[in-house]
């Protein structure tokens, strides 16, 4: 996961440096969420008993998601890139009319993800931590992502 992380950092840096095309911003943030998803795809099946617990894999995914969640995604939510403006995105326009709440949800993700590296050591601690983390995804999607 080092490479995508690195690539992402560049993307984010670029987005701050240059005015991005709306399409690029959308692609970048979707890439960000896909990366979150890739970590969850390792953690959730273990927590739900659909896959055997593997401490090493869990730890890697937990560290990754903790690092990813630190990223400030606000530069990727450029004005004029909501579902009302373009086809390629699922971002509701409410994000821009209620940016404070949106950032609060991002912060909840950050907090929950920060607990993951310590929780990944055993299945007993992983389970509630994944539930809490997944809850922060749901709560933001319910509010700010169209289906």
């Amino acid at each position, binding site marked *: 996961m080092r490479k995508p992380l690195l690539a992402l950092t560049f993307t984010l840096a670029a987005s701050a440096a240059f005015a991005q095309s709306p399409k690029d911003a959308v692609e970048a943030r979707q890439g960000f969420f896909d990366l979150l*998803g890739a970590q969850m*795809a390792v953690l959730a099946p273990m927590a739900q008993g659909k896959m055997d617990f593997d401490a090493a894999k869990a730890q890697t995914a937990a560290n990754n998601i903790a690092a990813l969640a630190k990223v400030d995604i606000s530069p990727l939510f450029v004005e004029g890139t909501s579902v009302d403006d373009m086809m390629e995105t699922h971002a509701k326009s409410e994000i821009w009319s209620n940016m404070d709440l949106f950032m609060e949800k991002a912060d909840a993700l950050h907090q929950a993800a920060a607990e993951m590296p310590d929780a990944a050591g055993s299945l007993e601690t992983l389970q509630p931590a994944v539930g809490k983390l*997944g*809850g922060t*995804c*749901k709560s933001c999607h319910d509010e700010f992502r169209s289906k």
Partner: protein
Amino acid sequence: MKDTAASPAKKTVTVWDPVVRLFHWLLVAAFAAAWGLGEWGPNQMTWHFYAGYAIAGLLAVRLIWGFVGSRTARFSHFLYGPKAVADYLRHLPSKESSGHVGHNPLGGWSVLVMLGLLIVQVVTGLTSDPQDYINVGPLAGSVPESISTSWAPKIHEFVATLLLIVVGIHIAAIVYYRTWKGVNLVKPMITGKKEVGE
């Protein structure tokens, strides 16, 4: 005018068999639970799923019962043709009870609509993937992604609202019978018995 007090003889008949009655009141409880938990429940939707599975089980029983159950429980008994429905509609504003034992011609179709929407709700729930990795429907992996991440959740959300409206009309119809036609439909759904004038 309706004049039940003077009607000479009254007879008690069984309208709803125990399976229909149990089905109905368990459905009411499970529906309320599924709806409330879906809209306002905890982020971990485990109990919403359980309520949904309960409804799926109830629907399966009711569908089978629609073919093999007692007379009034059968689809063949309560699904009437267009003429019967039209006749019934004409009679609807009258203060007189239609006197049907079992669902009336309009009510029968409303039952089918409710059951159909509930099936849609269960199917879209089972195949929904809200991409939070903790509330993924157990069949979401078996359908294309465009369905699991987009159409199924879209329809699930829409039909949830639609069901609320249809159930609202359902209850309004029961109240209408009670207040306008002076017929208590709820009691038979509890006891199974209905009084019919001879």
